[in-house]
Every structure is written in structure tokens, then in C-alpha cells.
């Protein structure tokens, strides 16, 4: 419970942060809410020589209406996402996912930037931003670049972020009126997802349109459930189709297993949650025991 010796650096601006990172190279680690980083350091699983705290960079803390998008600063906490009236109205998936992360303490400290940069294979927000086709702004002294959420995650705790880059902003589409759901299976409410399913869609007449689904907790990274999206878009959501789609949703996925859920059980659970998530956006009450 005692980290190895490190130096603490607290830049006051994004510019200062990026130049600090450039100077310190890969011996430095950015800290936002510290909810993942500090645990790793206390267990001595991570021992950065420098900790660069973004907490004093006020310019990274905002939720802004940008017309067809909402811009979110990397330092916005789960609690702030959950409470944001703008997001609730225009992009309800994000506050919903944020509200089931960890516990109150974690939600008060943990940030959206940290959650994505950490690229936890069971991260709740990772699934939400992926289902939303969010865009992520990465900034360094070399300049800034935008990447799609779909390109961001590379694997377990791995993303395209370079050591000298800061994730500065997340842009999610404004999708007021769309249906969305985030369903999470966890042993206890404060636990990481055994399976988390983020989904959003429009209902166009009777057909389902622009359905996007992302799944977390199941594999070495969050992923889009393409087979589900293809099967459902343009179709009317009804029980037989949902069950059939859900039952095939894990085909070809390399499902991980651990002490809380073997790969076999997790596969089953994922199918059940895919089905339940589709029902949720389709407002279809089904049998409490889906046949998948």
C-alpha cells in the first residue's frame, strides 16, 4: 500500500501538461481522478517516476453544447456526467452508463478521460462511447489529432494514446429522442461488469434504425456487436428476431473467463444481456426467462 518513490508534477494548463509530458518521456504518467492509477501504484504494479496531475487544468472540465454534438472535457467526472441535464436530454446513454460505475466515491473522483485512457476491458464508459461513435481529441506538443472511439481501443489497457499525449476532449453526437440502454451484469452493484451492453437506436416507423451496440467486460477490449447491428437495422424489433440475433451475438468472439465468470458462463450471460438490451430499446417486455 505504499507506492514507490515518485515525483509529483501539477501543470496549470494543457500546454504545460503536454510540454511536461514531452520533457519527461515515458517515465511519466498522467493522473486524472487517480481511481485506477493510484491503486496500481499502491500495489506497486505501476511505478511511474513522475505523476503528472491534470487536476489543476481547469480548461479540461466542461460539458458544452456544440449543436449536433456535445463536447466533454476529459476531466468531467462520472458524477458530473450523471447529473448533466444537457447530456440526459441529448445523449442519455452516457449518464446512464456513468451512473452504474463503481460506487459514489469512485464516481465523484473518476473522470471520463481517465476511464477511456485506461482502456479497461470491462470499462462501462468505454462501451458507451463506442456505441455512440464518439470522437476523441488527443493533444501533444506535436499537435492535436482526432480519433474515432472505434479506432481508440487496441486491447487490454491499451489504446492509441502515445505517452506524450493527453486525451483532452470527447465528442458525442446529440441524439435527443433516441432510444438507448446500458445494461450491466455484475456480482454486486459496485463491481466491474461481467458483461455490459450499451445500445442506442432510432425507431423509424416500426423499423429500427442506426442501431449501434457495444459490449464490455466480455473480451480483451470493448467491441461493437456488428452482427447484432446488421441483423436488426431496418427490421422491426420483435421477440423471435431478438432471440435469434442475441443467440448468435457472441459467435466468433474470444470470450474471456475468470473466477467470477468462466468463458462459457460469460458467453451465455452476454447473450442474455444483448437480448435484454435490445428489448429495452425496443420497449418489448419479454418473458423474464429469455430462451437463449
Amino acid at each position, binding site marked *: 500500500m505504499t*507506492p514507490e518513490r515518485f515525483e509529483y508534477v501539477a501543470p496549470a494548463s494543457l500546454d504545460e501538461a503536454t510540454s511536461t509530458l514531452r520533457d519527461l518521456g515515458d517515465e511519466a504518467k498522467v493522473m486524472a481522478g487517480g481511481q485506477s492509477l493510484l491503486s496500481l501504484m499502491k500495489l506497486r504494479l505501476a511505478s511511474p517516476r513522475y505523476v503528472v496531475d491534470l487536476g489543476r487544468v481547469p480548461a479540461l472540465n466542461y460539458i458544452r453544447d456544440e449543436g449536433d454534438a456535445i463536447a466533454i472535457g476529459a476531466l468531467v467526472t462520472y458524477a458530473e456526467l450523471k447529473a448533466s441535464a444537457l447530456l440526459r436530454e441529448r445523449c442519455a446513454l452516457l449518464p446512464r452508463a456513468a451512473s452504474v460505475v463503481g460506487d459514489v466515491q469512485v464516481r465523484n473522483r473518476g473522470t471520463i478521460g481517465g476511464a477511456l485512457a485506461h482502456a479497461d476491458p470491462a470499462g462501462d464508459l468505454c462501451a458507451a462511447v463506442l456505441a455512440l461513435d464518439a470522437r476523441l481529441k488527443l493533444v501533444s506538443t506535436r499537435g492535436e489529432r482526432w480519433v474515432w472511439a472505434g479506432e481508440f481501443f487496441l486491447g487490454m489497457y491499451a489504446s492509441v494514446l502515445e505517452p506524450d499525449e493527453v486525451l483532452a476532449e470527447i465528442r458525442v453526437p446529440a441524439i435527443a429522442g433516441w432510444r438507448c440502454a446500458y445494461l450491466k451484469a455484475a456480482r454486486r452493484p459496485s463491481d466491474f461488469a461481467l458483461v455490459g451492453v450499451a445500445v442506442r437506436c432510432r425507431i423509424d416507423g416500426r423499423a429500427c434504425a442506426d442501431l449501434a451496440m457495444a459490449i464490455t467486460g466480455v473480451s480483451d477490449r470493448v467491441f461493437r456487436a456488428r452482427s447484432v447491428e446488421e441483423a436488426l437495422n431496418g427490421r422491426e424489433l420483435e421477440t423471435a428476431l431478438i432471440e435469434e440475433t442475441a443467440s448468435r451475438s457472441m459467435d466468433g468472439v474470444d470470450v474471456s473467463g475468470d473466477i467470477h465468470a468462466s468463458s462459457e458462463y460469460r458467453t451465455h450471460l452476454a447473450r442474455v444481456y444483448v437480448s435484454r438490451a435490445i428489448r429495452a430499446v425496443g420497449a418489448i417486455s419479454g418473458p423474464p426467462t429469455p430462451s437463449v
Partner: protein
Amino acid sequence: MGDSTRPLESDGVFVTSQWVGAAVPRREDARTVQGQARYVDDIDMDTAHVAFVRSPHAHARITAIDTRDAEASPGVLAVMTGRDVAAATNPVAPRGITASVTQYVMAVDKVRYAGEPVVAVVAGTQYLAEDAAARVHVDYEPLPPVVEIEEALAEGAPLVFEEAGTNVLLHDAFEHGDVAGAFRGADLVVKETFRMPRFSSTPLEPWAIIAQWDPGTGAFVVWSNDQQPGRTAINVSRTLRVPIDKVRYIIPDSGGGFGIKLAVWPYIVILCLLARRAGKAVRWIQTRSEHLLAGTHTPEALIEAELALARDGRFLAIRVNSKENDGSFVHTAGIYPLIKFAVIVGCYGIRATAFEFSTVVTNKAPTVQNRGVGKPGMTFVLERLVDLAARALDLDPAEIRRRNFVRPEQMPYTTPTGEVYESGDYPECLRRALELAGYDEWCRKRDALREEGRYLGVGIAAGIEPGTSNLGYYYISRGRPDFLGSVEGAMVGADFDGGITVVTGSVDAGQGHATTVAQVVADMLAIRPEQVSMSTHFDSATSPFAPHSGTYANRFNDVELGAVVAATRKLRAKMLRIAAFVLGVHERSLALRAGTIHVEGDPTKAVSFQEIAAYAYKKALLLPEEIEPGLREIAYYQNRAAKVPRREEFNIQLTHANAVHVVVAEVDVATGFVTLPKYVIVHDWGRQLNPGIVKGMVIGSTVHGIGAALYEEFLYSPDGQLLTGTFMDYLKPVALTVPRFDLGEMESPCPTSPLGTKAVGEGGAITSLPAIANAVEDALRPFGVTVTSLPITPEKTLRAIRGARVI
């Protein structure tokens, strides 16, 4: 404070009836919740810090240890290896086992579990100590580990203690009554093999120790959160090779014990050695990771059991064979079985019992007596068998229990093994629980919801919660008497201003002892509880304590309060003598009221406690010769119901509360997730001294049981690595997963405890396990599922539903 003056009954305990039985708010709470409690780590003292190098292997020979880099590390004051420990100490003395084995408080030449301390490092700060510990180089030659019970028992299994020649360090079998005859004559035998998980209580504050050494006197002062200073004083003295009086124990506030802090003492030995070696006081605050890895667990058990019945559902005999994985700590190995078999018949009039047990050692972490010590497992097994029998006979689970309960008119009832159930009305307890739960209605609801594809089940369990251990039961197997009975001490006095002060031999680990003691003393002396001050800090230099002293086995309400009552009586008698002298009347004509003693019928002729104290101390010269100065009385107390345990007559515990839990469980049969929409408890707690504390205990311990029933298990890989090393993987129940509890009322006073109280601290953790299991099994009846193991995890449940049929 009442304004009526009540005459003092010469042999009555209480002179007022104002406080005992009232839900007086806990005086401990304000400081605790405001962060003002003083735990070991809050002790403001300049100390060095300790870090341990722990074995990465479950089983290995230590071929070399190189401490040179560590010794050269910044701030390092001392480095100590297992061999250093072996040179300076005696091996750990086993209690329960018969095999002769040698083990020291640190690993010597061989490691027996992953996490065993191999080297200890002392440095100026915790950071430097950890840094230096990382620079100790240990070479290991890995040995094949034995992890699970079955492996340890297999032919040719690697041996955890080679010198024992076996991994079974204790085996014994007992039979009471005509078991074979009962099984022969039975109409039905239900038989099953059950598995209890390895779990723990994981108190909020892990172990914590500061040790200081005085080179001038060779004496140590130890601050720790030990739960049982009496035995610790003996263990540390024997192991450290110093007389008992050379170690002073101070126990400040403790953040929960639950039995887990009965095993702090080996580390006290280590810290004492380090303090002496470093020439400086040393501090060790166990981390959560260390606690889960190398702190103590409840042993897992594999239990074969069968129950013989008559056609009408009467239980004729029970037979149990239990194998326990006691890990690798010889001191506590073998402690579980006999205390667990003390409740082999539960609440029932079964007249023939047979049990056999094996204490198995493996390369897992040490075990220690933990909340309920084996009784949760025994009750799980018995109450599962009862439900299986009810199902086989197509009897309602409530009805089959009713037919077999020990009846109130049989009290006091002696079980075949010699336990004496002093009082109670088990059928009535069940009746109240069923009524409070709305049992029939829930059964109807369950049947109706099944039509809609929802799976609810109603579970009932009845359990005995014994209190106050008649210690030394383990020598029934060893054949050598050791500890007997249960003794506790207390000192009650008046300070120079007449304020009442209490010092106890037991320690508080969150139970609210000071609150309860103040209520009792207040009613004995006709004062307010606020006028009674009691330090919750134990100090062996001033606390009257016995080798049994400590807080475990629900003994506070019995023997500690017995000692408090006895010491208060002595004090009261002396105060009356002084008052009689001052007022010039006979003691018998005196009464107590509001901090004064006055002539009965004439409150104006009074002397205050303050004045009495002045006579006792400052003006003692004025006292007649036959009254000794001072106002401070010590008393020791023991529960006289204890008999010397024998093979024929166990008498292992001395009070017996009972409880019925009725639980509704709902299973999501698509995922295997279980929720508990309804939870009812009727716990016959004997007389309640403080209903707030009593109910808090019952609820808290039930939550602990929910943990073992649904969440908690220490899992190991096949090579003996702990897989549940953090609270992300070792799952405790949390507020959001705990149901609301509806508690009924039931008070059958205990005739053998001084105030009529019975145990409340463990019962929830005992009775909840089968109640929840029975509810889940009932919910899954359409799938033909049997629950034989805990915890009931979603994955196991789903597998059972989808064909495996067994959880």
C-alpha cells in the same frame, strides 16, 4: 433518573430498573463515526516501520537468502530471517493436533503457503521498509504443493509437515447413543456430501502492532488489536522465551475482530524480536492485501452427512464425517471440529449422533476461529438435510421442524453429546417467524409467480447459537487437560470525586461494551450511565484478566458482565459501609438514589458518592480501623455451568440462544443471479440489555452469513496461489445487496448467565447460511436442483438450472 427511592435488596443485582433493557445509544459511536477513535495506527509515537518479504510460492524449500542489498538500503535498521527467529524463539505450540510438528512464527528453511513471512525488514518509514524488502533476494526450490483437501489425502501426497508423516494432523471419531440401531430401524435415510467455502470476516481494520523494548529492564510494551490478550500473554511468553510479566499489552480501539484477531500473536512475537534487534519501537500495520493473503481464514470443509428418519418425519440419528482444510498453521489446526459438533443436533431432539473428523493441512493460508467457528457449517449441513428429508417425505419444511424440535417442557435439555440447552421455546420461535414473514402468503405467491416464469423460494432454518466456550474442548482428542471453563475479571471503583470507573479483562472490538457495562452499573448503583466511565482500552498492567480473557465466543454478556456485577456488588457493599459509618446508621437501613446513599424513608439524611470517596481516599484517617481505605474492587467470575469436558459429555459451550430465519429468494433463471426480497429473523436472545446493540449484532452477523452464502470465497489456483487477493475479487456483501431485515422479539432468559442473557453475535452467521440455501433450492424446485455447497454463485446456479442439478 426516577425520583422514587428504592430500598436496597440485600441480594438483588439492580436497585433501579431504568437502564438495563433500554436502547441507550452507544457511547462509542460519536467518536468512531467522527474519526476520533484511536486505533493502533493512531498512536502518536516515533516508531520504525516493518515490511515483510513473503513467499511467492505455496510450497518450496528456501535455498538461500541474501539480505545484503536490503541491509544497505536507505533507512534500514534491521533485517531478520526465519533462521534468526528460530534461534531466538520456541516453536509455535499446537493446541488441537496430536501429531508432533515444528513450526516457527516465520518460515524457516521451507515455506508452506504463498504469503508466508520469510524475511522482516525494519526501516525509518514504511516506504523505505518496502523498498528494502524488494531488495531481499531469496532462492526457492519449489516443491509440489497440496492445495485442496482431496489432494492432501491422496496416497503419496507431498507432505506439508514431513515430520508428521501425513497431512492429517488430527483424526477422531465419536458416537453417542445407538446410531447403528437407529439407522437400521430407519424408514428413510437422507444422505449428502456438502462443501463449506473458505471465507473470513475481513475486519475493517486489519492487524496492527507496535512493539517497544526497554533494554534496561528487558521488558516489552506491545500495542495491538489482539482479541484475546489472556492467551496471547501465554503464547507470546512461551514463544519469545520471556516471563509473562515482561510483556505489557495495550489494546486501544479495535476495528472489528470476529475471531480473525485471535491470530495476531505470532506477529507480536515477530515485532518484539524486531524491536529488540533494531533498538527502536517498531510498527506494523497489515495491509488489506496481506490480510487476505496471509491473515487467517475460516477453513473450508468437506462434510458427508446422513440423517435417519421414521416415516412420520421424526429424526432418529445423524452421522457426520467432516474433513477440514486448516491450511498451514499448527497452533489453530484441529480447533474447529469439536466445537462444531457441539451443535450437531441443532434445535432437534435427535438422540443418537456419530461424527468423525480429519484435520487436514495444506499449502493454504492459516486458519483461525472465525464467527461461529464451524457451527455455520454444521448448521448448514443439518438444516439442508432437514429440508431434503421434508422433500422426500413430502412434508412442509416448517412442519418437519415442528415435529422434531426439543420441546419447551424438556428444558433444560441435555443433548446426546452433553450440551445443555438451558431454556427456550423453539416451536414458538418458529411460529413467530412464520407469522412475521407471512409464510403461507409467500408460499402462495411463489406458486402463482411460477406460472409467470418467475422463480421464488421460501427458506426456513432453525439454528442454535451457543455462547461462552468451555475452553480446552480440544484436549478431548489430545487427552491432556489445558484450559477449562471460562474466567473473566473486572475492576469497578470510585475515583476521588465519586465517579464510577470500570476496567474489564475483555477487550472491545466494536461491540459497545462500555455502553452496556455503564447501563448495568448504573442500575446497580442508582446513577446515570454517563456517571460510569469505562476505558475501552485494555492494558495488561491494570486490567484484571485471566488466561481466557478476550472477546470471542459470545462471552462478554455472560462472564464479563458476571465479573462486572460481582465487582460492583463489592464496591456497593463498601460504599454502604462507609455511608453507614458517616450517617451513623446500620447499612441495612440505607438506600441508593441519584448518586447518593441515604437513610431509607429520609432522603435528607444522605451522603453523596463524592463524600464517600472523600472518606475513602482523602479523609481515610477518619474511617474506623476495620474499613480499609480506597474504593476499588476486583472480581473474577466464571460460568459455573461448565463441567470438565469428557468424550461422553462435551459441554463445550455454556449458553444457547436459538433463532429461526425465514428468507425469500428469487432466482433469475436466465442468469443465475439471486436476490433476497424478504428476510425475517426471530432470535431468542434471552434477556436484552440493550436492544439497539442486540439487534445490531443479529443483523450484522446475518450480513456476514449472506456473504458466505452468496459471495465470499477464497479461491486458490492449483499451484496454491490465492486468486481472490483484493476486495475486487473477494466479494463482501455491500449495502446495496443486503435486504431489509424484519426482526421479531423473543426473550427466554438464560438461567445460567448472571443477567439472563444469551448469545447474539454469531447466530446470524450460523442460521442464515441454510436459510438462504433452502430458499434458493425451493425456488429452483421445478429444475430439481439441490444445494450442497456455498457460496451460491450465479455461475454455479445457472449450471445447476441448465442440467447439473447441483449447486
